Every structure is written in C-alpha cells, then in structure tokens.
C-alpha cells in the first residue's frame, strides 16, 4: 500500500508522520510534497489537510502538526497494534492504552479521523524502524494501512534517510529478486536478513573480505563489526577519507554523486531522477571504478569450477 509523493500532494487529506522529524531531517517534505501544497482536490492546501505527528518527544515537527501524540519510548508497536484492534471495534482496556502514553479519547478521535478521511497516508521514520522491534514496527504500520483500506483509501511509506538507498533496494529487487541481505555463494541469489545482513555478518565474523561503497560503517556500526572490518581485507570507495578508509587495505577516492558524478538516484517513493553534476571531479566515478574492478576480476579464473553445479537450497523438500 504505497504511492508516489505526488499522490499525497494531490489527494492526501490526512497525513500521519510516525517516528520521524521531517522539519529537521527532510526539511522540504512538508512544503514540497505534503501538508503545505494546494491541489485541484484540496484547493485550500494546509486548511484542507489534517496532520498528526506521533513521536517519543516533541520535536520541531510538532509545531506543524494539528495533533501531536507523544508515545512512550518503545511502545510504538503496542500503540499501532491497539489501533488495529480499535478499527475493528475490539475492546482494549484503559490501562492497556495508558501504558503507551496516550488516552482513549485521543485514540478514539484518531480512529474516527482515519476512517472519515478521503485519503490517508502514514510516513514512518527511523524513530519507528530503527527502535526495538525494528522491521516489525514498520510491518505493523503497513498492516494498519492495509486494513484501513476496508474503510477508505490509505497508504504507508517509509521516510528513507540517506541519499540513494532506495535505488539500491529497487535495483537489487529487479536483478536478484530480493531487496537486501543476499548471498550468491551457491551461484544464485538467496535471502535471509539476520543471516546475510551486514551487521550480523560482521559481528559473527562471517566474511573474509569486504567491499564498502557509499557508506561509512567504520563510523556507524557496533565495535565488534568494525573490529572485523579491521581484521579482513577491506576495500573502500568514497569521495572523502572516511573512518572506513582509515581501517581499509585499499581506499579509492571517487567523485561525489550529483555534485561531480552523473547518473540516476531514486526518490523515497521509488521514482528515479536524473543527476545533474555541476562540477568536474579530478577523481573517477564510482561507476567507473567498480566496473574496472569487475573487469579485473573477470580476467581471473572463475570461482565456480567448469561444469560444477552448486546444490540449490530450495524451500520444498
């Protein structure tokens, strides 16, 4: 249940930001895509829309909201699950509701507004997807949005953080069938987050070389993961000398995307946009360097012996 930001701009009369702080992290989200816009269907713009902010603290974004709901830290999953029950007229006790930091009156009002809007939209940020519960918190909100379609039009969309992470997601899906957490060790893509996702792989020490591009795990990951990157040969591509570059065996400086490297980037709603670099970099682009590394690898013996067919791990037995 997702849509492009243009749909939100044109039609959404009810917008909920959950666990995100667009005013400070995505400053133009309000003005360009959501609450401030006027459209054919919502001619009075901001006046025709209701905006709700759900977060654990009153951020700057709360000023822009019609309703601010302060949820107790770590209670997002419980609160969304309560909402799922309430929209189906299931009874949830006052004490149970109070544990999440909000009141029954606030939730009854929210449910009523959700059901009576014409087009509702949830945006969820890292305050939801990166806290205890992680993917299940996001799944909860997506499920709530899906279930709301029994009453009215409702969608949910993640507020993706860094740059072109959406592009990586989209491309991996079409080329491998999976969005992340993939292994090719049997010659075809397999997927299992937790098993093949980077933090877990590094903390357990499951890889014996690492190629890092467009990220700085040396600055952001837990120490055991960083320690493993130091132990193994790490190769790093970045426009700057980063923490990862400093622990890497090989660093290559590359042109910055969109500043001096051309190409494409995906917006958080999976729309691709062309990049228009203003400057000419003295460094090669990521694309060029990775392609050249791939070529150098392809000139070495192929890892699968001629005629060997790795055993597939299939779901059916």
């Amino acid at each position: 249940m997702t849509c492009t930001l243009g749909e939100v701009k044109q039609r959404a009369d009810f917008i909920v930001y959950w666990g995100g702080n667009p005013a400070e992290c995505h400053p133009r989200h309000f003005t360009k895509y959501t609450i401030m816009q006027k459209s054919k269907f919502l001619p009075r713009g901001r006046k025709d829309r209701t905006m709700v902010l759900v977060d654990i603290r009153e951020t700057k974004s709360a000023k822009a909201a019609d309703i601010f709901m302060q949820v107790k830290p770590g209670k997002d999953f419980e609160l969304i699950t309560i909402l799922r029950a309430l929209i189906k007229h299931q009874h949830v006790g006052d004490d149970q509701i109070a544990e999440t930091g909000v009141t029954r009156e606030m939730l009854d009002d929210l449910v009523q507004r959700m059901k009576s809007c014409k087009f509702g939209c949830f945006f969820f940020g890292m305050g939801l997807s990166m806290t205890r519960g992680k993917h299940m918190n996001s799944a909860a909100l997506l499920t709530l949005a899906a279930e709301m379609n029994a009453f009215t039009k409702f969608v949910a969309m993640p507020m993706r953080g860094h740059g072109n992470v959406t592009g990586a997601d989209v491309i991996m899906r079409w080329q491998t069938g999976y969005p992340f957490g993939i292994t090719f060790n049997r010659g075809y893509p397999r997927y299992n987050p937790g098993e093949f996702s980077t933090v877990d792989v590094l903390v357990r020490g499951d890889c014996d070389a690492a190629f890092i591009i467009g990220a700085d795990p040396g600055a952001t990951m837990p120490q055991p993961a960083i320690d493993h990157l130091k132990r193994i040969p790490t190769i790093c591509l970045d426009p700057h000398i980063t923490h990862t570059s400093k622990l890497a065996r090989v660093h290559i400086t590359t042109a910055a995307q969109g500043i001096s490297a051309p190409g494409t980037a995906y917006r958080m709603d999976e729309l691709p946009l062309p990049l228009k670099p203003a400057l000419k970099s003295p460094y090669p682009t990521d694309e060029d360097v990775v392609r050249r590394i791939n070529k150098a690898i392809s000139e070495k013996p192929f890892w699968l012996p001629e005629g060997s067919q790795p055993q597939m791990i299939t779901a059916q037995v």
Partner: protein
Amino acid sequence: MTLQIIDNATCTFCGCVCDDIQLHHDEVRIHEAKKACVLGTAWFLNHTAEKKYPDALIDGKEATVEEAIQTAATLLHEADMPLVYGMSNTTCEAQKECVAMADQLGGLLDSHTSL
C-alpha cells in the same frame, strides 16, 4: 565573477531527492544552491572540485587508481566469502555494478536498508 548556473539539479542528500535546485558554481565550488534546504545547501557547498585527497591508498600509502583497482580485484577474488556493502551515497549506475560484482564473486550483497 560570473557564475555558471545549472537548473533543476537533483539533491541526493536525503531521500526526498529534490530535483528543482538551482546551482551557481565556478567550476571549482558551488556558491549557491537555490531552493535547497539547509541540509541540501550544506551538502552542495561542502563538496568542491579540488583535489583534497590522494587518488588511492593501499595499506595507507598513496597509490594510483589502477594499482588500487588491481589490488582490490585480487583481494576480492581470493576471498571465500566476500561482502559487498553500502550503496547509499552512490548512483544507480554504480549500484548496478556492485550487484554485478557480488554476483560475479559469489559473495554477500547488502545495503544500508538492513541496518
């Protein structure tokens, strides 16, 4: 000084990927990013076309790009379980090459999303 202008440039700092930015630059640095937010402006103004860093480093020593590419290829090729990771701050074109790399290496492939 007359600055060159790029219309409808795309900002990749955050997931909004605003594509209506007007950049004023002198080929070395960007002096103004009209319509960009504070975060986007900082992103555009902090990058320059100057050569601030060495082309490449191998074990902390300066090297040519070609040397670094060959070393990288050798290290990755020798590994039994190489990992290709990141891909947030890069172009789709580079991302496709990264998927091709993991496919060719028989390795692990993961992005920022898994964090």
